[in-house]
């Protein structure tokens, strides 16, 4: 039926919003959507599509780590083919992460605040940084980050430190690209979350290996001047 209309995608979307969920996820419905042959003996209760699952679930199903590392590896290879230098590569990874960060923030705020009677929003920088360190990291990587540091030299610089970043666990950067940190992707996520909370900043990732943690990575946050000025006013 989707093919009889000019825009099949539009028609599918409008179907999903009007049709009752039971009808929509019956094997017959999925046949028209994906033009798959009907498999005999398919269980009558098909797992709901990711868009139709409950957003506020606190217990989030885990994602296969191997599948993610292969995907991320392909993302890096894809990006690398289209750039001229390390800086460009890091910038593009940052952009990819940014698109995830905006969604992470929205989902996280919804999960944390939608049930509460007096929902709140972080307006001070330090609590916001703490919530990135614990909540964002837990939502994205399943564990909190290892440390937060404040730069001694520059008042506008803060650092989030991860001793064993999940996305870099299997990545060995060749010697001629030693400045490259694939955690630029994570930096992009952090930048998007900060932007979304109203703390515009430039976020970059740097390798800071130690003897115990060879893949230790620092996410450097350089806040914009306006943020610091506002913090002064709020004091």
């Amino acid at each position, binding site marked *: 039926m989707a093919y009889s209309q000019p825009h099949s995608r539009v028609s599918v979307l409008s179907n999903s919003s009007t049709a009752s969920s039971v009808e929509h996820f019956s094997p017959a419905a999925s046949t028209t959507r994906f033009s798959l042959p009907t498999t005999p003996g398919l269980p009558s209760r098909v797992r709901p599509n990711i868009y139709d699952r409950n957003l506020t679930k606190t217990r989030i199903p885990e994602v296969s780590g191997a599948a993610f590392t292969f995907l991320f*590896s392909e*993302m*890096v290879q894809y990006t*690398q083919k289209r750039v001229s230098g390390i800086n460009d590569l890091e910038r593009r990874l940052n952009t990819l992460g940014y698109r995830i960060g905006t969604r992470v923030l929205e989902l996280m705020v919804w999960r944390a605040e939608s049930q509460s009677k007096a929902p709140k929003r972080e307006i001070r920088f330090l609590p916001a940084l703490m919530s990135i360190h614990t909540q964002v990291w837990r939502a994205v990587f399943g564990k909190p980050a290892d440390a937060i540091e404040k730069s001694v030299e520059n008042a506008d610089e803060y650092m989030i430190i991860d001793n064993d970043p999940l996305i870099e666990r*299997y*990545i*060995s950067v*060749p010697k001629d690209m030693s400045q490259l940190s*694939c955690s630029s992707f994570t930096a992009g996520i952090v930048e998007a979350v900060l932007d979304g909370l109203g703390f515009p900043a430039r976020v970059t990732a740097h390798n800071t290996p130690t003897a115990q943690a060879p893949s230790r990575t620092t996410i450097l946050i350089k806040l914009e001047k306006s943020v610091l000025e506002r913090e002064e006013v709020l004091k």
Partner: protein
Amino acid sequence: MPIYGLWVINKAGGLVYQRNFADGLAQLTSNEYLVLAGTLHGIHAITSRLSPIGSSSGAQVIEGETFKMTILLTATATKFVLLTSLSETTADAVLQKVYEIYSDAVMKNPFHTPEMPIRSEGFDTRITALIGNGS
């Protein structure tokens, strides 16, 4: 019961990784290693067709007077070869572990090109942790 060396041979018969761990075998030049790997690839192809009853996995162990060579053929036709002394019993288990490390540290590394020589620090480190330090 030393482990002498480890080779990884790609599906075209090229040697993509070679490392020695203990003395006991003749030292060869890298060119000789490449030739040997290619020869082994050919021998393996022949042995996999020797069986009178259909397909065969090919040679799994080749024994000499002073050493033995254990070969693990993966589903993607990459071969892992472990050179050990005759009394070594853990070769099969070590090869399985090597395969696991290869899948993790080489195949998931975006800076590795498939079928090309393995230059991945993570692979070296984990092989060292598994087998020990090479000469």
